[in-house]
């Protein structure tokens, strides 16, 4: 995966994860153009489109668009599963997630994503394991001091 963008129906960016090195200017340009292109799609159209030399897979969940850019040899259908898995993780973590949760807790959204994908690839296919990892990181955060290794069990 080259990048993932989350944006609202008004085109406001809610999350951006870039797995390729691009300048800020290029990122802004890509974001602007892609958001426009996806928002222009009619509701009944399929979830895939070709844009520049990338394949774009997008899905709308309520008021949020989840949009991934994958390479030519990547499987579009499994990317849809990746998006869905991420939404499920968010839902489990926040308890019936809505766009506002992601707005006000954007760092958490990033942390969850970083436990699911790494370098643009899936790192953990067990929902349980991802959620446990986040839980334990949150616990760790609550302690203000540096924690020694014995206190926390990692999966």
């Amino acid at each position, binding site marked *: 995966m080259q990048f993932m963008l989350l944006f609202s129906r008004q085109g406001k*960016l*809610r*999350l*951006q*994860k870039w*797995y390729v*090195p*691009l*300048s800020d200017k290029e990122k*802004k340009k890509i974001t602007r153009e892609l958001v426009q292109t996806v928002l222009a799609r009619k509701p*009944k*159209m*399929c*979830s*895939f*489109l*070709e*844009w*520049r*030399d990338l394949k774009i897979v997008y899905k709308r969940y309520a008021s949020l668009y989840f949009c991934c850019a994958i390479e030519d*040899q990547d*499987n*579009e*259908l*499994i990317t*849809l*599963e*990746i998006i869905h*898995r991420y939404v499920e993780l968010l839902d489990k973590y926040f308890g019936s997630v809505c766009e506002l949760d992601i*707005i*006000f807790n*954007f*760092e958490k959204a990033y*942390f969850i994503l*970083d436990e699911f994908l*790494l*370098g643009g*690839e*899936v*790192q*953990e*296919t*067990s*929902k349980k*394991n991802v959620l446990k*990892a986040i839980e*334990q*990181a949150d616990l*760790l*955060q609550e*302690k*203000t*001091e*540096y*924690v*020694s*290794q014995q206190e*926390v069990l*990692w*999966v």
Partner: protein
Amino acid sequence: MVLPSLKLQDLIEQIRGAKTQAQEREVIQKECAHIRASFRDGDPLHRHRQLAKLLYVHMLGYPAHFGQMECLKLIASTRFTDKRVGYLGAMLLLDERQDAHLLITNSIKNDMSQGVPAVQGLALCTLSTMGSAEMCRDLASEVEKLLLQPSPYVRKKAVLTAVHMIRKVPELSSIFLPPCTQLLRERHHGILLGTVTLITELCERSPAALKHFRKMVPQLVQILRTLVTTGYSKEHSISGISDPFLQVQILRLLRILGRNHDESSDAMNDLLAQVATNTDTSRNAGNAVLFETVMTIMDIRSAAGLRVLAVNILGRFLLNSDKNIRYVALTSLLRLVQSDHSAVQRHRPTVVECLQEPDASLSRRALELSLALVNSSNVRAMMQELQTFLSSCPPDLRADCASGILLAAERFAPNKRWHIDTILRVLTMAGIYVRDDAVANLIQLIGGAQELHAYSVRRLYSALAEDISQQPTVQVATWCIGEYGDLLWEGSCEESEPLQVEEEEVLTLLERVLQSHLSLPATRGYALTALMKLSTRLRGDNNRIRQVVSVYGSCLDVELQQRAVEYNALFRKYDHMRAAILEKMPVVEPSGPQADEEAKESGEAVPSPSEPQASKLMDLLDLLDGSSGEAQQLPPMAPSPEDSLVHLLDLPCDPPAPACSSSAAHPAGAPPLPVDDGTRCLRPTRELLLSPTPAPIPNLRVFEREGLQINLSFVRPPETPSLLLITVTATNTSGGDVTHFICQAAVPKSFQLQLQPPSGDTVPAQGGLPMTQLLRILNPNKAPLRLKLRLTYTHFGQSVQEIFEVNNLPVETWQ
């Protein structure tokens, strides 16, 4: 008094509460000032909160570079909270183009070697997201160590970080190849998935690695088999499919290992058949696995039966109610249509049905696939379907559809009459979308099919009588009527219904075309010429035609006026020659590039078949009137060394420039050669003797995008110092044609710019014939040249517009 800064949640509330962009900017600017102040001398305990706010603001599009150093400080802190936000900030704000990013290398190193697993995880995550090649080189050995860490949490992240490192620094493959064997024995799905990804990456980059890992095919097959048959694990399953992510990744690796390798392909045959037949296809997860299986089957050396099975699965996908599945099927079938043509042909009816899809991306795919499936046996049926599609398809597909139909018709037409009918129908339905040469092609075709002249002229006459707005049809029809009008009222035609046409009706129709405001200037030119030709084919007298022709002698359109005046002259002074001049044209040889050359040289957009007649006429008049034509032939120069001084004094100053001699009939704008410049030549003559011949100006590549390249080549004709000729050449090495290509140019006010018509508007794929266009720039003040180009075209189904200034223009272009 310092106002307390907001908490993150409050800041977000305030920003969302802002009613206007300006208000939002105000809130943010105020807060950023606070943040900056607190970075300078604020409480380190709350630094992470300040950075979090800054990251939020950054996501809204505001500058946040002043937070970069804070990221470093937070990462270096011992508190987990700080590290978490610090690393997040690093991934969002630091990028490998700035040197600052290297400063976190040390922190990452420390965290990887000494941190608790959670911290090691953060470091690995950051490294795999934004790690530059330099960082990867520095930290490779640390990551290698982490592959042996007891905690699976860390191991799985280390494996994927290795993937990233290899992508950045392929030489690191040697470090990460050995551990793979051991890693493949892991039970943890995450580690297994990462390992398969790592092996895939290694194999894609090195044939040696590929050979090495082929030995593992049996092992991989076993893992996949276990997953599919017995490995039901609730926590890894989606809709009853065991870990589809892992299955897909293994299938992808098997594809790479089995490609072009019989032994490996054999080893996977059974398993692939098993997965293809047993996977539940009721939900997307199953279809994703099935799709990957099909792709693998088609790419390796699989048994014929298996290949047919795979194509049939794709055929089934085409009938799936889920649009996404249909899209994926169409795309895959398109890729396979060359290699497995007959297998894909079997699904032609379904593909044709997909043309009716309301979703434009699907119907476009269906169109491409349908066009690829046309062959000599199904051409009639397919053309029928495609023409139906053309009449109802969305506008952006019309051009592709029309061109596709015309191309297919050219390749597979069963007979000429069918071919003519087809082109005619396409022109009537989608006239404005066809390529410029469609009219010329049709005219050639008709001209060459003598037995069909009567048929063609009747059909075209009826079409014209119905509708004079479709320009391409009108052009062809008027030409036809002009050439074969006599067949309209003489003789009968068995192939079409009897048509009673009076001469006067025909003339009225042509006059209507001539007068209609719907007609393009080129069309009116056709009509006038046609009228003229009819003057020799009418049975009655020519008074009506003579009237029309003389009226247009004062037409505002210069082209029409010229024609009318010349035709008038033909009536008055050269009536005895009229019949000979206007007799039927000989068959024109089909010649694409040559025709373009002629069009380019004469500087008109009128297609070639009418050129021979018009220029014949003009040449004749030239001879008779003794006026100089447009052709400017430069005397060939062969200066011999010892006589060079003498020659240079006698003859025109400079040797002819290459550009001028190649296009013999240079447009009227070319300045006449100075003839009596004996005296003026003295000074430049000496200079020429002493200075070396002017070096050719180097070409300039000005644009490159997805295989489309634009090059500029420059010529400064020596006899016209202020003139610069630029040839724009567009080449296309990609797999898709570039169509509707338009290039426009702009120069500063002191320059004069003239664009000649391009050689065409399509740049065919795979290095096909390049498109060229000539620009003439006059720069009398010798001002520095600036040039802006605007390109619009369609490529891979996307409309592209690019505007850019040409940099690095060689100084020789204007000095």
